[in-house]
Each structure stands twice: as C-alpha cells, then as structure tokens.
C-alpha cells in the first residue's frame, strides 16, 4: 500500500472515529463510514493540510470514497 493511502486512512480513522479495518479503499465516507456533509468538508480540509495541496470545491464534491481521495492526492502531488 502506498504511503499516501496509509496517511489518508489514518486521517479518516481519526476524523470519523471509525475502526481501522472498516476504512477499505472502496468505503464511502457517507454510506459506509457514517460521515455527514460537514464531516466530508472537514476531511477534505484535513487532506489539504496533510498533503499541502489545494482541493477545489468542484473536485472535493467528487471525492466520495477513500480511493477517490487517494487517487486525487497521488495525481495532484505526482
């Protein structure tokens, strides 16, 4: 697993207060991990902070799963 994936999952675990094994790549923040719309905004902010990138609102709206986040960040930082 990539370093980015590990760090994304760690942030998700911390911010959503969920068990680590539930944070699979295909897990949806809202449907599987109990996030609400404000939680997802905060998650995106945490990703920005952690990875020093900017995630515009229109891109953030498309980040629905753990994999979406990893893919976006790897692309942005790649």
């Amino acid at each position, binding site marked *: 697993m990539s370093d980015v994936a590990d760090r994304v999952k760690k942030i998700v675990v911390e*911010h*959503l*207060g969920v068990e680590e094994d539930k944070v699979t790549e295909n897990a949806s923040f809202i449907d599987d991990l109990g996030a609400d719309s*404000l939680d997802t*905004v*905060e998650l995106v*902010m945490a990703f*920005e*902070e952690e990875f020093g990138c*900017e995630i515009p609102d229109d891109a953030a709206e498309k980040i629905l799963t753990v994999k979406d986040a990893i893919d976006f960040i790897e692309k942005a930082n790649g």
Partner: protein
Amino acid sequence: MRRVVVTGLGAVTPLASGAQITWQKLLNSQSGIKGIDTFDVSDIPAKIAGLVPRGEGEGLFNAEDHVSIKDMKKMDDFIVYGIAAADQALADSGWKPETDEDQEATGVLIGSGIGGLPKIADASDLVNNGKTRRVSPFFIPSCLINLVSGQVSIKHGLKGPNHAVVTACSTGAHAIGDASRMIMLGDADVMVAGGAEAAVCRLGMAGFAAARALSTGYNDTPTEASRPWDEGRDGFVMGEGAGCVVLEEYEHAKARGAKIYAEVGGYGMSGDAYHITAPAEDGNGGFRSMRNALRNAGVNPEDVDYVNAHGTSTPLGDEIELGAVKRLFGDHATKLSMSSTKSATGHLLGAAGAIEAVFSILAIHEGVVPPTLNLRNPSEACKGIDLVPLEAKQRKVNVALSNSFGFGGTNASLVFKAFK
C-alpha cells in the same frame, strides 16, 4: 396551572463534576478557584478563575464520558459542559423517553451567556491570518448558544420544545423559569433546563477585565478572591461549567414514581432600564424581580428561609442587592439566611443561575444552607442579616429564593418550595 416539580439535578462546576459531590464540597467550605494555567495571562490583570477540575476519577470531569472524541471538535467547551450536566440530570431523574409520545413531551431549554468565545477567537485568528480556508465547517455550530439544547435533544431523542435563553448572568435562572412555564402551560410535560458557560479564555478574560469587573487583588491567593459582602472584595472571579435540572409536571412525576427534590414555586422577572453594566443604584430591579417571584409563588416574604444571592463580590452590586433584600423582607430580613455560593465557585455567568438553582433545591431537600466563603469582615452596609459566613449551617428550608442579575439590567428570581 399545572404544578411543576424538580426530579433531576446535574452540575459541572469548578468544585466538581456532579451535583452531589459539588454540594458536599460546597458544604465543606472548599473553593474551586485557582490560578489560570491553561493559557497565557501575563498581560491580563486578573489571573485566576473557577476552572472545572478535569481528569478521571470521582468528581473529576472527563469529557469523553459524555461526548465521543469525533464529536468533540464539533462543539466548544460550553456545549460539552451543558451536555454533561443534562446527562447527569436525566440520569438522576430516571426519565428516559423512548416512545414518540414521551419524546415529544420532553423539551430542552439550556442557555448560555456568551457561547463559544474560545472557538470564535480561534477562527478569527485563522481568518485574520490569511487562513480562511482552514475555518472548520463545524465552527458555527460549535459556538451557537442554542446548540447546547440542540445537542442534548439529539443525544437523548427529546422532541419537545427546543429553546435557548441568552440573558447574560441571568440566563440560567431565566431558562429554568421559562421552562417551568412551558410545563405549566402544557407545551411539555418534562423539560431539561439550565445554563452552560465556558468563556474563561484570553478573549473573555481580557473583555471582563477591560470592563473593570474582575478581582485583581488576590492573584496570589485565589481561593480568597471571591468574597461577597466582605470589605476586601474587589470584583468577581470568572468561572465555567453548567447546571441543569429536570423539571416535570407533578402528575407525570407521580405516575412514574419519580423522586421529587422540590417544587418550582414561582418565577419573577424585571428590567432595570438604567445602565448596560451597572445595577440601578437603588436596587429596584432586583427588588421587583424578587417581589414578582414571591407574588407568582403565592408566598409571603416571611415564608422565605433562604436566599441564594446573586452576590458576585463586586463593590457596588453586593450592597445594592442586600439593600433590596432588606427593603423587601423588612424585619424578616434578620431571620432568613442568605449566602453567595459564588464565593466557592466563582461567577459562572450564564450557568450561574442554574447551578445556584441546584444549590437552592438541595438546601431545601437536605435542610442545610451553604456558606459564603471569605466573609470575615462584612462591610458596614452588609450587617444585620445572616450571610452564613465561612461555614454551612443546618437549617430547615421550606422556601428558597435564588437571584440572578445580568448585564443590560435583566433580572430573574426563582422560588423553590419544599414538596408537600
């Protein structure tokens, strides 16, 4: 009108977390005031406060007992304290509504004087330092005053009236008074009511210090700083925490066999129409508030055994309130007991009226009146009345009156009666 009784108590105070343990410490003449060590006070003249003791163990406040770590960032401390006091009061009352009907008959009315000042200060720093995008999506709901009531309703499934009071230092008393009327008028059968405050932060301390309201002469001896009616008093001491009561329509409480602490006898309000921070010099605002509460309760001044005073330890306010009490009660003023529990807790602003309602109710229930700490030399105008100096006193209390007065000239008085 329907009768309203008190069936549950909750308190998070500088003395302890828990109504009973706070009460025991209060009766033991302990103080919850100490030097502020949680933030820098080097440029603020008042360096002490009543801070909620945190940790794990009896009487210590552990936020995680009440709110998950995940949810903690969605609320400023005043909301966490309010949830904790409401949890305690509901647990104490044994009321756990599960059907739609019961949930809809149960409301929440918890206020705050100031709300989420620490989080407002932090977010303001971000915005003013070019970090607008770092402002949390939870910032607004973390500091809105009515979010105590909102969070408590969500946690416990309480679907009745959901309301909040904001009347500075009268908030807690107004909340309990207003909630009791909602039950009397049939809007709800049960109300969780009270106040919460956590404004002991750099911004809050700087603001009250600028208003010259705070004690500054006892920074090295914090437990001696809050000394209502004493000659050496020099201002109030900031405090934080929350108080909640479960109010219940009498037949409802009786039908489920609930423990009844006391009855809400009456509620009075008034406005000074005088000054934004100073009380009217003749004390007529407090006088009318007390008079209205007694009239509403249908009790005579001679029936009152105990007054829990607003008594914040300010040079002006303490004497004005005491003068109003002497005028209202006449000869009976020499027979009643009056104390200021702010001497032990500091001034919890919007939560003050709520924790002091809890103390007044316990005075009735336990037959003992709590002391006024540090009252060694009452100033001349404060003589001729039993101010319960230094030590608690056994005394049968049938009727207790609790005063709360706030900036803006807003006054509230509550009357509690022994349940018969």
